[in-house]
C-alpha cells in the first residue's frame, strides 16, 4: 500500500459469505473494481484431529479421518489406510483394492460435480448448478447403495474393505453410471458452447506454469496450469496401475481450464469405475492383520482436490504414535493470491472457488492463544502431560 491508500478500499469476503461454503476470511483490497491485494486468513475451524487420532486405535481412526472432510471423505480414509498398510507391511487383497477404487472414483465424480455446481453458482448460472447437482444425485445413489451412507462411507478399513459388491449391484452401478455420463457430457457441452461462461471464466484467475511450480499447487489446479501430475499415475496406490485412464491437462491456466479439467476427469473416473467392475477379481475382502511394530511411512492419494498425504508412525501399541496429514487445500490456498491480484472484484468468488477450497479439512492446527491468559496455556500443558502418561 503506497500513497494511493486513500483510493483503495477493502472488501471483506468471508468468514461467512454467500460465495464460500466454508469459513475463510479474504480481505480483498480493491481500487474501484480492480483487486490490488488480498489477505487470506483461514483458521476458523480448529478441531485438533491429529491429537485426537493419537488417542484412538488404528481401526477407530478410520471413522475419525472420514470426518476430516465431508466431501472427499473416501480419499481421507484411503490415504490413511494406505499409510497404515505401508507402515505395517500389510498385503491387501486385490478384490478389496478394486472395491476401494470404485469408492474412490465415485467419490471423485460426486466431488467434481458438486464443485462444478458451486462454480456455476459463482458466475450466477443457477440453472446449470441445479442440473449438475441433479446429475450428482445419481452417483450419490450409487455411493449410498454401495456403502449405506451418503457422506461418511465407513467402507474402508485397515487391510481391506467392509462391504462386497454383488453382480446385481454391479449392474445397478452400470445403469447409474450411464446417467452420470450423459449428464456430464451435457454439462461439458454447455461449458464449451456457452459464450457467457467463456467470457466470465477464460483469462480469469491466471496461474502460470512457473507460478504454479513456485506455489507447489497440486491436483486439478496444477493440471489446469499445464503441469502433468497425478498421483494415480505417478505413484500408483490401491492398484491404479491396472487401470487405463488419461491424465487431463489443460494449458489455459485459468478458471475455464480448471472447469474443463474437472469435467474431463469426471468422465475418466467413470471409465475407471467401469474397468474395475469389469475386471473385478475374486478373493478375500480383508487381509490378516499383524501386530503393530515400530515403523513409519506415508500414504499419498490423489484426492479430488489434489495430492493428500498421511504420515503414520507406529509403535508396539494399537494406537499410532504420530499421525500427520497434509490436505491439498493447504498448498492450493496461497496460490489464490497471485490469481486474485489484477483481476476484478466480480471474479473473486469464482477464483477462490476454482481451487475447490476445502477449508475445514485444512484447519487442524492447534494455536495457543496467548491473549486468552496463562491459565489456559497451563491447562493445555496439563493436558499434554496427561496424554504422555497414558
Amino acid at each position, binding site marked *: 500500500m503506497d500513497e494511493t491508500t486513500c483510493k483503495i478500499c477493502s472488501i471483506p469476503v468471508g468468514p461467512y459469505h*454467500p460465495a464460500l461454503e466454508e469459513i475463510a476470511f479474504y480481505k480483498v483490497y480493491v481500487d474501484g*473494481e480492480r483487486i490490488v491485494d488480498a489477505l487470506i486468513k483461514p483458521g476458523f475451524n480448529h478441531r485438533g484431529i491429529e491429537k485426537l487420532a493419537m488417542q484412538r486405535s488404528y481401526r477407530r481412526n478410520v471413522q475419525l479421518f472420514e470426518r476430516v472432510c465431508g466431501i472427499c471423505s473416501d480419499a481421507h480414509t484411503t490415504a490413511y489406510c494406505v499409510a497404515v498398510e505401508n507402515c505395517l507391511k500389510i498385503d491387501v487383497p486385490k478384490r478389496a483394492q478394486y472395491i476401494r477404487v470404485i469408492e474412490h472414483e465415485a467419490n471423485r465424480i460426486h466431488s467434481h460435480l458438486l464443485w462444478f455446481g458451486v462454480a456455476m453458482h459463482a458466475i*450466477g*448460472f443457477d440453472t446449470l448448478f441445479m442440473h449438475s447437482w441433479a446429475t450428482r444425485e445419481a452417483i450419490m445413489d450409487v455411493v449410498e447403495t454401495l456403502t449405506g451412507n451418503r457422506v461418511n462411507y465407513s467402507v474402508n478399513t485397515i487391510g481391506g474393505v467392509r462391504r462386497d459388491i454383488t453382480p446385481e449391484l454391479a449392474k445397478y452401478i452400470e445403469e447409474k453410471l450411464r446417467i452420470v455420463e450423459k449428464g456430464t457430457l451435457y454439462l461439458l457441452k454447455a461449458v464449451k458452447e*456457452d459464450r457467457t461462461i467463456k467470457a*466470465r471464466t477464460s483469462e480469469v484467475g491466471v496461474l502460470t506454469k512457473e507460478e504454479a511450480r513456485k506455489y507447489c499447487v497440486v491436483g486439478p489446479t496444477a493440471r489446469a496450469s499445464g503441469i502433468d501430475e497425478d498421483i494415480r499415475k505417478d505413484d500408483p496406490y490401491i492398484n491404479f496401475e491396472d487401470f487405463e485412464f488419461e491424465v487431463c491437462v489443460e494449458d489455459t491456466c485459468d478458471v475455464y481450464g480448471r472447469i474443463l479439467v474437472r469435467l474431463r476427469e469426471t468422465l475418466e473416473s467413470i471409465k475407471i469405475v467401469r474397468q474395475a467392475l469389469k475386471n473385478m477379481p475374486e478373493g478375500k475382502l480383508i487381509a490378516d492383520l499383524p501386530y503393530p511394530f515400530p515403523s513409519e511411512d506415508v500414504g499419498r492419494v490423489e484426492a479430488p482436490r489434489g495430492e493428500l498425504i498421511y504420515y503414520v508412525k507406529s509403535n508396539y501399541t494399537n494406537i499410532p504414535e504420530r499421525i500427520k496429514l497434509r490436505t491439498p487445500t493447504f498448498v492450493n490456498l496461497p496460490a489464490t493470491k497471485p490469481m486474485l491480484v489484477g483481476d476484478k472484484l466480480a471474479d473473486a468468488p469464482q477464483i477462490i472457488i476454482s481451487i475447490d477450497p476445502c477449508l475445514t479439512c485444512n484447519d487442524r492446527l492447534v494455536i495457543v492463544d496467548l491473549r486468552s491468559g496463562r491459565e489456559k496455556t497451563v491447562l493445555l500443558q496439563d493436558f499434554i502431560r496427561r496424554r504422555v502418561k497414558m
Partner: protein
Amino acid sequence: MFIIPVITALVEVIVFPGLVFSILFGGIIVWMYRKIRARLQGRRGPPWYQTYADIFKLLIKETIVPLRAWKLGFISAPVASVAALLAAVLLLPFFGKFSALGFLGDAIVLLYLLTIPTFAIIFGGMASGSPYGIVGSGREASLLVWYELPLWLSAVAVFALSNTITVSGIVEEQALHGPFALRLPLAFIAFLIATQAKLAKRPFDIPHAETEIVAGPYTEYSGALRALFEISEALKWLTISALGATLFLGWPIIGNVVVDALVFLGKIVFFALIYAFVDIINPRLRIEQAGWPLWEIAAFLALIDVVRVCVGLVF
C-alpha cells in the same frame, strides 16, 4: 355530482390499477418467475402465496438501521421507489387505450418515473454505509448509464412513428396500424435488452450479484424497508412489462373495457415471461462486459430504427 369522479379516482388509485391490484399482481408475476425457474431447474418451486408470505414475514420482522447509515436517505429510498412505481402504474393504459391518469406528454413522465427506482436503489446503497452497498450502487449507476440510451432511443422510435407523446395516442396508433413490435423490430429487440438490464435480471443482475457482494445495495436492509424493496422489485417487473406492452404490443384493442384490461394483463404476463426465461438461461456478465450488448448492440439497433422512422422507411 362532483363526488363520482372523486370516488372513481380514489378507486383507481387504491384498488385498480393502483396500490392493491398492482401489488397483488406483481406478487403473481414474481411467483410465476420462481415457479418456472424451479421447473426448468428440476425443482418443484413454491406455492402461489409464497411471495406474499415472504413480504408479510419481512413486514413483521424488526427493521434495523445501521449506525453508520444516513438515516433519512436509508429510509426514504425504498419509500420513494415504491411511490414512483405506483404513480407509474396510474399512467399505464389498463383500460384499453386509456390510463387512469392520462394527460398530454404522459409517456415521457412514465419513462422518468420508471428511472426513479434505480436512483432510489443507488441512493439506498450509498446511504447504508456498507462496502457491499457502495460497490453495488456503483455497479447500478454504471449499468444505468448503459441501458438508458438504448431504452430512450427505442422509445424515441416509437414516439416518432406514432407522432405523439401520449400513452393513449401510442396505443391508438398501434390499434389502427398493427403493433410496433412488427413495425419496429430492431427497436423492440433493443427495448428488450435494455429493460432486461433495467430490471437487473440475468445476465445483467450485476448490482446485486450475491456471490460477489452479498445483496449489493440491499445488503443492510431488513424488515419493513426490505419488504418495500421487494414490493418495488415486483412492481418494477410489472410496470416495465406493461411499458413493453404499451410501446410495442398495443394492437388488439377490442373496445370493451373489461376485455381490454384482461388482454393487457395477458400482455404483461407475456413480457414478464420473456424476462423470466432470459434470466433463467443465462449466467451473469461482468460489469465491463455488460456495456457491450447494451451500447454496441441495443443502442445501435434502436438507432437504426430511429433513422428508419425519420427517413420514412417504416411501413
